């Protein structure tokens, strides 16, 4: 009843325009709210201490304080953190992709007894998160003397069953005739895998690579457990320590902390900007499987 009266009150075209306007305003509003924390991160990182501690809101600093970034870099071994994170992430990406591709080939095109069983073993590992297994892993790593090393951080994430699963799904779509043709031309198994299957499944490779990069760069739990020396901190852990950089007391030097946080996530922004399309499409694709 109400709907019909409204219909007669306004011609459809006006109703349409009103609808679009309301929707756009709402959408922009939501976006502003969602982006605000990141904007606030940037704004705070450029403020003076007085602006941070003032009782009114300073939306943008009067004079951007680039010195905050210099302070963070000098106060803590920031570039060392970044190097540690980069090394661990690179190790993790390499092993996840390499071992993932090999295993995915075996599980999709390979022929051996127990293939099904081993694949169940791989999938089952997804049900056992690091939050369950970290105590025994910690003990083992401490025993073999890998505490505070890249290898110690790397080992817990060096194979991803999720990566194997996604790559297997992709490899299964490759038609056998391509492989047979290549074999007839005298290509070896590894050649077929790396010269034909991997290039044919490039989108999935990129998705898996990106997931792996994000997982490595943003990893927090395991590095926190295994690294106790400041020089070996990864960024996520090191940035937390900025909060206690004045003699262990938790402080409100948020302009400096925010500068540190911002520096630590710049690489993620770059990757996001470069691969945005792949990320959005890749992740929805992964979800549908």
């Amino acid at each position, binding site marked *: 009843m109400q709907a019909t009266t409204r219909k007669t009150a306004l011609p459809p075209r006006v109703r349409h325009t009103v609808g679009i306007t309301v929707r756009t305003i709402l959408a922009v509003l939501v*976006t502003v709210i969602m982006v605000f924390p990141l904007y*606030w991160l940037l704004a705070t990182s450029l403020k003076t201490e007085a602006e941070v501690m003032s009782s009114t809101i300073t939306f943008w600093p009067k004079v951007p304080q680039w010195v905050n970034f210099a302070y963070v870099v000098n106060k803590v071994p920031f570039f060392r953190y970044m190097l540690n994170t980069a090394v661990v992430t690179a190790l993790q990406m390499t092993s996840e992709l390499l071992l993932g591709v090999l*295993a995915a080939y*075996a*599980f999709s095109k390979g022929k051996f007894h127990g293939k099904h069983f081993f694949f169940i073993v791989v999938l089952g590992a997804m049900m056992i998160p690091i939050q*369950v297994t970290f105590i025994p892993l910690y003990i083992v790593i401490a025993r073999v003397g890998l505490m505070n090393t890249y290898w110690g951080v790397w080992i817990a994430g060096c194979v991803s069953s999720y990566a194997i699963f996604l790559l297997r799904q992709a490899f299964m779509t490759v038609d056998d005739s391509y492989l047979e043709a290549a074999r007839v031309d005298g290509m070896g198994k590894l050649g077929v895998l790396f010269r034909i299957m991997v290039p044919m499944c490039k989108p999935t490779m990129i998705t898996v690579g990106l997931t792996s990069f994000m997982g490595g760069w943003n990893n927090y739990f395991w590095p926190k457990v295994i690294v106790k020396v400041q020089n070996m901190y990864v960024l996520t852990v090191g940035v937390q320590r900025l909060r206690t950089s004045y003699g262990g007391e938790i402080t409100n030097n*948020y302009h400096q902390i925010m500068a540190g946080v911002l520096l630590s996530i710049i690489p993620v922004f770059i990757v996001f900007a470069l691969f945005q399309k792949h990320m959005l499409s890749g992740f929805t694709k992964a979800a549908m499987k």
Partner: protein
Amino acid sequence: MFLKKKTRTMVINGREVHLRPEKFYWSDFFMALPAVLILILITYYPVAELIRISFTDWRLTSREYDYVGWKNWIWLFTAKTSLRYLTNSLRVTFIYTIGNILIDLGIGLLLAHLFNHLTKPYSFMRALIFMPRYIAMSSCGIIFLWMLNTDYGVINKMLEWVGVKNHINWLGDDNLALVSILMLTGWHGVGYCMMIYLSALLGISRDYYEASSLDGATGLQQFRYITLPLLSPTTLFLFITTFISSMKVYQSVDVMTGGGPRQKTEVMVYYIYRLAFDDNRLDRASVVALLFFVVLLVITASTLRITNKNVHYEA
């Protein structure tokens, strides 16, 4: 027997053709082996170790330990302190999980409808909303810690505009601490749910809507009787993944509240971590970790069962 060669025959064009026997390629086997072995070493073996440690009196500080039988298990289910902390952490974890699912899926679905518009500006806005997911939760935690700061935080200052003169102690309040964490994780995860829902929405044929509007269905009825049922596989997928990842929550709690105030935000993983590395009780931590593992398994298994029963797969 393992490598027995069977000759298979097949009839092609009326002629009997001998096919090569089913082969066992060692090369294929060895390609799968490294990944499988490492996975067994870093996931299955530690679970077995957990069971073993749960029967010892292993402290973090000592290398020696004795087997003490069921002592830790008895401690877990009978000791007063253990029961209080355990039920508390279970309760906090479940409240957090339910809250997180409601926020992520509910708001995610709303946003998916709002941003269901295939133009350039909208796709830009979608990317912005999606972005937080790629920033480390620990970094996001610090940003929220600062925004929720009692004296200088921007949120309390903005609340002053609408008349809330007393600054709210977000992270120190028994009830608001968990709300603060939910705000953080909601902000972090809602964009992902939106994108997944959106791609599912785009997969629903327009015909359903046209046909139903010819029959006089209102927008709400269409949502209730067409959109929601057809989205149920997606909802279920998001429900399961969000459920499991919420159960494992640690980073946001560690950064924002450290389990406080008065254990009001002490989730399961945090409790395990505290037992192991603050109380140095590896044995007790193992018992709780095993219990946590069983809870996770039961949830996964039961949700998978529900999947097969109640979901409409046609779209």
